[in-house]
């Protein structure tokens, strides 16, 4: 039985009708394409009247297929599918073709545009005839959530979910949660103390009955799909029995081995071999660093064990694995700081008094290595002049093209702190000062009032090679002052480099592990940059915080909360619909060659040993169709994009080239232009 196709050509006001002769296209469809039962043009198909037109035709004319030639399917496919469903037609029997974005908006010649529109309508009709009824499947959503990363973003997301009554697993790689924010002293623009606002949240996490905190742990493996992920977490050996340890800290006091702390103190201070990153750490059980511990190096010492009052030290401890089931995942894995050594002309690592922003944060922090005193690398001398260099590794085509977004405000904050704690003059070398959030511009004005100097120009070099009187023993910042149009040499005692924020070194691996994509730089890609900023293209995986792109604390917290809200929505709904655009393997045709098995990046294809055929797990399949194209036996069929449908579409779209649908006599050997 042949199908009854309804064709609807939208005018889109004058957007389409201004260029395409819509009546002619409708007439063409009705008269020259087989199986078209109804062909209409209408001012606005997406309006409720337009939709009703379709619904009525389905009911009255008994249409079995619908084609809407209008805007891009990315805009209104859902609208028209819903209209079909309202009238009792399976929504997947409707097809849209984009005669606005691909025709009327990009072609000026009316006749040519009309011809192209006809070809596209012909293709749509040919294709839709072969559409199959599809049903989205429904799966339940596990109410547990995995939050990866215990910085302020992850903390916020975990607390929001836990407070709403849902269980959360919070996984943190380091021994304590807190992230970068725990390293900071003050936060801009209000200058409230970072620890004062962060530590209450950290202890909330530590004591919340709904939060399972897994610190010093990493996600080893994740499988499953939205609503039903299985996650294996590796809990790294702490060599401290968490049950027995009271966190008294005697072991740390007695440990004889002191090493530079590259993580929490950013290389500015020391820690013991058994340590917790900072006194307010959550959880507060210490960790033994096996790389520096004397016992692990030489087989003796055990000072910590000897002094531990609760016998909590366990040198034999091994990594352990925990398997959990969760419904959704929030990735809040944060960032790394750009290695300023990659800009050798700034001398970091070579010139003692060149510091990175993170080092300076630690220096300002009252619990940091200098107890909050701003001093040179000798640990004693207070600087009399400080230069702050913006955009180190950002907005620089040699390194990262993007703006790191937070550095201008951090630089202003540093300027304020230097002037508050010392008598030093502060000069900032900037490209642009970007202060675009609430209260930020006011803070900039405040610093201008306070007397911070601003030189508009990217520093060319920082050198200790004195050239003029007054430069001896100083660091000289050479820069072109682009407002004066002059080269300037500014001798200072201390330089702070505002290093760029970079994606975590392993961000791309993490992306691959969780099945989400990264931008060229390595930031996680959100589903839509404006309208869906925390979801990803993989259902059930959400991103938040700097892992998605550079942003400050307020924005990170907002994203953490937003991701939590999205997850709550999923949990409350209870079930989730899975798009039926998936691949299926016909067992009787499959030869079991396994070519497809390794093609699938989502591990949706497994080999059934007993039947010796491959099998697609529909819940894991995302419908890309690569396996369909690769199967040598054509045993795999991709729903909604199967070979027959696409062949029909090719035939339709070339209807005027050769008798694709018999609508026109095949052309002679010299093919005339479509116009």
């Amino acid at each position: 039985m042949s199908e009854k196709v309804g064709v609807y050509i939208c005018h889109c006001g004058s957007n389409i009708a201004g260029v395409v002769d819509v009546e002619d296209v409708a007439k063409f469809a009705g008269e020259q394409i087989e199986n078209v039962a109804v062909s209409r043009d209408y001012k606005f198909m997406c309006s409720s009247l337009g939709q009703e037109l379709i619904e009525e035709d389905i009911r009255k004319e008994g249409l079995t297929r619908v084609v809407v030639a209008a805007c891009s399917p990315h805009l209104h496919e859902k609208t028209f599918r819903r209209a079909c469903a309202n009238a009792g037609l399976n929504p997947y029997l409707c097809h849209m073709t984009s005669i606005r974005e691909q025709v009327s908006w990009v072609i000026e010649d009316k006749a040519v545009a009309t011809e192209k529109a006809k070809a596209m309508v012909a293709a749509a009709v040919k294709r839709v005839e072969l559409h199959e009824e599809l049903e989205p499947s429904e799966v339940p959503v596990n109410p547990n959530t995995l939050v990866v990363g215990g910085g302020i973003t992850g903390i916020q997301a975990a607390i929001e979910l836990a407070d709403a009554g849902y269980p959360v697993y919070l996984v943190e790689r380091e021994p304590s949660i807190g992230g970068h924010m725990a390293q900071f002293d003050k936060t801009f623009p209000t200058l409230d103390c970072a620890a004062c606002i962060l530590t209450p949240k950290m202890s909330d996490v530590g004591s919340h009955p709904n939060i399972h905190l897994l610190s010093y742990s990493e996600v080893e493996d994740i499988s499953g799909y939205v609503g039903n992920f299985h996650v294996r977490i590796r809990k790294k050996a702490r060599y401290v029995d968490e049950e027995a340890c009271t966190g008294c800290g005697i072991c740390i006091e007695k440990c004889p081995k002191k090493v530079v702390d590259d993580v929490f103190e950013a290389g500015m201070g020391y820690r013991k071999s058994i340590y917790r990153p900072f006194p307010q750490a959550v959880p507060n059980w210490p960790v033994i660093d096996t790389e520096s511990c004397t016992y692990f190096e030489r087989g003796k010492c055990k000072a910590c064990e000897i002094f531990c009052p609760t016998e909590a030290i366990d040198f034999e401890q091994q990594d352990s694995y925990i398997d959990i089931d969760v419904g959704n995942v929030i990735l809040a894995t944060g960032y790394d700081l750009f290695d300023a050594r990659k800009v050798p002309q700034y001398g970091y690592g070579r010139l003692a008094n060149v510091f990175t922003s993170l080092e300076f944060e630690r220096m300002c922090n009252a619990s940091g290595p200098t107890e909050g005193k701003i001093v040179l690398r000798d640990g004693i001398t207070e600087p009399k002049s400080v230069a702050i260099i913006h955009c180190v590794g950002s907005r620089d085509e040699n390194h990262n093209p993007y703006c790191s977004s937070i550095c201008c405000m951090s630089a202003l904050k540093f300027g304020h702190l230097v002037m508050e704690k010392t008598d030093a003059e502060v000069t900032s070398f900037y490209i642009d000062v970007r202060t675009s959030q609430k209260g930020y511009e006011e803070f900039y004005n405040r610093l201008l009032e306070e007397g911070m100097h601003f030189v508009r120009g990217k520093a060319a070099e920082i050198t200790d090679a004195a050239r003029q009187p007054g430069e001896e023993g100083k660091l000289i910042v050479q820069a072109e002052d682009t407002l004066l149009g002059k080269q300037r040499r500014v001798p200072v005692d201390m330089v702070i480099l505002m290093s760029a924020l970079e994606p975590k070194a392993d961000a791309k691996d993490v992306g691959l592990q969780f099945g989400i994509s990264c931008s060229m730089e390595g930031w996680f890609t959100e589903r839509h940059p404006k309208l869906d900023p925390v979801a990803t293209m993989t259902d059930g995986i959400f991103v938040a915080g700097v892992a998605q792109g550079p942003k400050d604390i307020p924005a990170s917290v907002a994203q953490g909360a937003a991701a939590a809200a999205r997850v709550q929505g999923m949990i409350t709904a209870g079930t989730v619909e899975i798009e039926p655009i998936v691949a299926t393997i016909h067992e009787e045709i499959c030869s079991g060659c396994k070519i497809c098995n390794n093609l699938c990046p989502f591990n949706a294809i497994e080999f059934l040993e007993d039947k010796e055929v491959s099998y697609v797990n529909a819940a894991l399949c995302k419908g890309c169709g690569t396996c369909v194209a690769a199967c040598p036996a054509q045993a795999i069929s991709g729903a909604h994009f199967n070979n027959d449908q696409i062949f029909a579409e090719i035939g339709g779209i070339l209807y005027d080239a050769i008798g694709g649908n018999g609508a026109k006599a095949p052309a002679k050997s010299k093919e005339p232009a479509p116009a």
Partner: protein
Amino acid sequence: MVDERFEPKIVAFLCNWCSYRAADLAGTARIKYEPNVRMIRVMCSGRVDPTFVLKAFALGADGVMIAGCHPGECHYLEQNYKAMRRFNMLKHTLKAMGVEEGRIRLQWASAAEGVQLASAINEMVDQVRELGPLNWAQNWHEDGEVEAAIQRIEEEHAEVMEVPA
């Protein structure tokens, strides 16, 4: 007399996530480009079976473009790499069949690259216009066995691709 220059027909397979959105963007930005290209949406450039390309040529296309996300930005993680590999083999095969390399093009276009997609299309249309009509379809049509010939291609293709047990 009107200009009788040859207007090639080009079929483009666009991936749903980047390239089709680039085409949407070209439209929204009102970037005018050659009308000779006709687009077919697939979910991923990895879905483009070489048979699609052969079919398009057989049905009268003078050129075929495959467009996908940039390497490393595939919505399906890495399937565009598979498209790339397949494309290289296909180019080789087509060459053996006497189809000029310029008639087939693999184009990366991110959702933000409407301009780039449009200029790639223009470039390709110019190139194919230079090459002239392919006329595959006519060859078979004169035999009066279009469908049979096409069917043969598919069968031969399936045979060639079959992995011996």
